[in-house]
């Protein structure tokens, strides 16, 4: 008899949404999360407002977490990892281990949804990019989120309000030398959102965004980009920064203003690096344990010719969210819904066939 339980790996936005939906259908779900808390990256990395929509990330995530917690058919296992998996669709035998003490447990699942997400690009990886580990006042989008959430956007080295803030786009993305040739999709929007928040919290600060191309697809254009420019007077300059040097206690960003064709050397108090997405260590580990094909960048490979954006190389295992590649939250939640439906219908079909 095929197993009717659906295993979801990862308790971030995608995993939570898939668990909520499958649970709402009255089916059994086991939600495995490596961390000791639910909520994934938005919670663990203290996101401020969500892009887009500007709703408090904590509030929005608590809603999804609450729905999962309230559902009796969803069994949440925190601090747990999948360490082995055999079998096939309808009959996966999975070994779970408690992080740290190694205590094991064997599960039986009919289908699996992988929702193990991404991690932010580390600007110190391989080559030191923009002196991130050298200058206190060079920070990443994730660092900025924490400050914005606490309503304390300051010059880290001084603790005072900045007069000049800039964002440098495409850090760790669209780069053949770094090996991440893809666009991380969300950084243009998140930088612009943060630029708005900086202007809201520190109205005296001048805010610049140095970019190669602004990729504000769909409604991000009118809901984020245009307000940032028109209402909040964020200055968009086409031309990326090559290097940051320290001069007179301030940071000097050097590059070229490409539409003017002129070199620039502009003083800044805080430089925010718009770091892109990479597969999380959990994504790479789970792909290995489950034997899923990964693409060139180690995200979980989706065979796009199947017209199924949640399929993986192994039948019965589905993927949702940024584990399959850079994704914003809208797409992540939509994909979680699709993966939940694929997993549920598969289990139902197998049960019908067996009956």
């Amino acid at each position, binding site marked *: 008899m095929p197993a009717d339980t659906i295993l979801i790996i990862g308790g971030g936005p995608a995993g939570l949404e898939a668990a909520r939906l499958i649970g709402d259908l009255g089916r059994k779900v086991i939600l495995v999360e490596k961390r000791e808390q639910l909520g994934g990256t938005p919670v663990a990395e203290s996101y401020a407002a969500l892009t887009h929509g500007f709703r408090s990330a904590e509030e929005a995530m608590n809603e999804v977490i609450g729905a999962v917690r309230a559902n009796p058919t969803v069994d949440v296992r925190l601090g747990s990892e999948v360490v082995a998996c055999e079998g096939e669709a309808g009959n996966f035998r999975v070994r779970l281990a408690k992080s740290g003490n190694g205590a094991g447990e064997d599960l039986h699942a009919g289908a699996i949804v992988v929702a193990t997400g991404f991690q932010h690009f580390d600007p110190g990886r391989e080559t030191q990019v923009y002196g991130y580990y050298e200058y206190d006042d060079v920070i990443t989008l994730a660092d900025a989120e924490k400050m914005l959430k606490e309503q304390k956007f300051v010059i880290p080295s001084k603790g005072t309000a900045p007069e000049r803030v800039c964002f440098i786009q*495409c850090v760790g993305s*669209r*780069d*053949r*030398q*770094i090996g991440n040739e893809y666009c991380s999709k969300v950084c243009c929007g998140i930088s612009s959102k943060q630029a708005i928040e900086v202007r809201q919290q520190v109205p005296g600060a001048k805010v610049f965004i140095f970019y*190669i*191309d602004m990729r504000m697809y769909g409604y991000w254009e009118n809901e984020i980009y245009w307000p940032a420019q028109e209402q909040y007077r964020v200055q968009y300059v086409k*031309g*990326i*920064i*090559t*290097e940051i*040097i320290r001069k007179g206690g301030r940071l000097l960003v*050097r*590059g*070229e203003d*490409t539409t003017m*064709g002129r*070199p620039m050397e502009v003083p800044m108090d805080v430089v925010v690096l718009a770091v892109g997405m990479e597969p999380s260590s959990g994504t790479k580990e789970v792909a290995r344990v489950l034997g899923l094909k990964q693409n060139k960048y180690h995200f979980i490979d989706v065979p796009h010719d199947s017209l199924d954006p949640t399929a993986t190389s192994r039948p019965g295992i589905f993927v949702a969210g940024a584990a399959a590649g850079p994704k914003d939250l809208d797409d992540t939640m939509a994909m979680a819904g699709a993966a939940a439906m694929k997993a549920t219908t598969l289990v139902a079909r197998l049960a019908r066939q067996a009956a």
Partner: protein
Amino acid sequence: MAVGLDKVKPEAITEERQLIVDGMDISGHWNRMFEQRVIWDYDTSQLDRVTDLPGGESLAWCYGCAKCTGVCPVDIVGDYSPRKIHRKTQMGIDLFESPDLWLCTTCRNCLRVCPKEVDMIQIMPAVREQAVLAGSVPAELQKAFEDTAKHGNPLGQPQRKRADWIKKAGAPVPVLKDVKRPVDLLWYVGSYPSYHPRGIDAAAAAARIFHALGVDYGILGIEEKDDGDSQRLAGEKGLFEMLAEANIAAFEKYTWNRMVVTGPHEFNAFKNEYPKLGFVRPIVHYTRLLVEYLDRLRPMLTKPLNLKVTFHDPCYLGRHNGEYDAPRQLLRAIPGVELVEMGRCRENGYCCGGGGGGMWLDSFTKAHTTMRLSERRVREAVEYGADVLAVCCPFEVSRFEDAAKSTGHDRLIVRDILELLDQALEGQP
């Protein structure tokens, strides 16, 4: 009759002064006489011409991020960068005939930061080779090519005098054809250390240091020819191959374990380019060799120099071959030397302007930039308060000394690290 701008004194072309040309008053309007030409097409044939060449392909990959412009040494003194080259070529401007073709020094700073790996180190030689074949080469570079072809060195000095410098060495310099036994090290001296007066100073210093350390080595003397790599990068691939063939034959005539090289360009040639022609042997730059000998060398460095020294990273030692530490280790070993770093150092080191044929394009480059790269660099050294600008590339001593004079910074001392070590050596006057 039209009046060319060269006939109009620049001071006359101001808003204040009156300027009448052919009876027409153009005071204050001279720069507003032309409307911008509308772009009505993009002639992509010029870009195709470049990318069709083996090595030229990556010019088409540029997505205009402009990271290169921020670190291009030529852009700092002019209006030039790989992004701009891509854009101009895309607009239909002929790179083969443009002065831009000869401004790149192949310093590699653009490639270091390029997210698309647009490789000017391949593109420039490929396009220049075509320009050379078409006979479209700046005259001074053409002369260096001809001198190299005729005499085996770009200085135009007789081949038979290549080893004459050893008379000034102040220490015995073994020449391999006389030694008649295997040696540990083959020392490739190079053209500038063999002929240029300031190069000879460095070569003589090296000879004295090697002698003091008891290094077992020999030189090729008049059997040595220029390595040809800078000529290759300037577009003379045929000349490079000819020189390489002759050098490889000379290298293989003798028995030795390792080759020590005075210059970073030659080091790069033997380490990275000659292997493509079948010559694969261990190569070491003199700075790394002397670091190996440092335990023995350090106690001999007894005379304190009491100087504030800054070090100029040669592009072909640093960025091209990843050696940043050996020169600094040597400088720190000299008593009384205070090493100060310039803003542009190590991976982001500024270029002296001598690479990729720039050594023989001085007047040409000067005509197309606001100042020589060497002049820009000398100003930076002075800005950081250095007494001495230390170098370890034979192209650089003369370049920087000329630049120190032309910028009025005569007090800045330019020395090869070999000369500084030699000066600190016990028993030297």
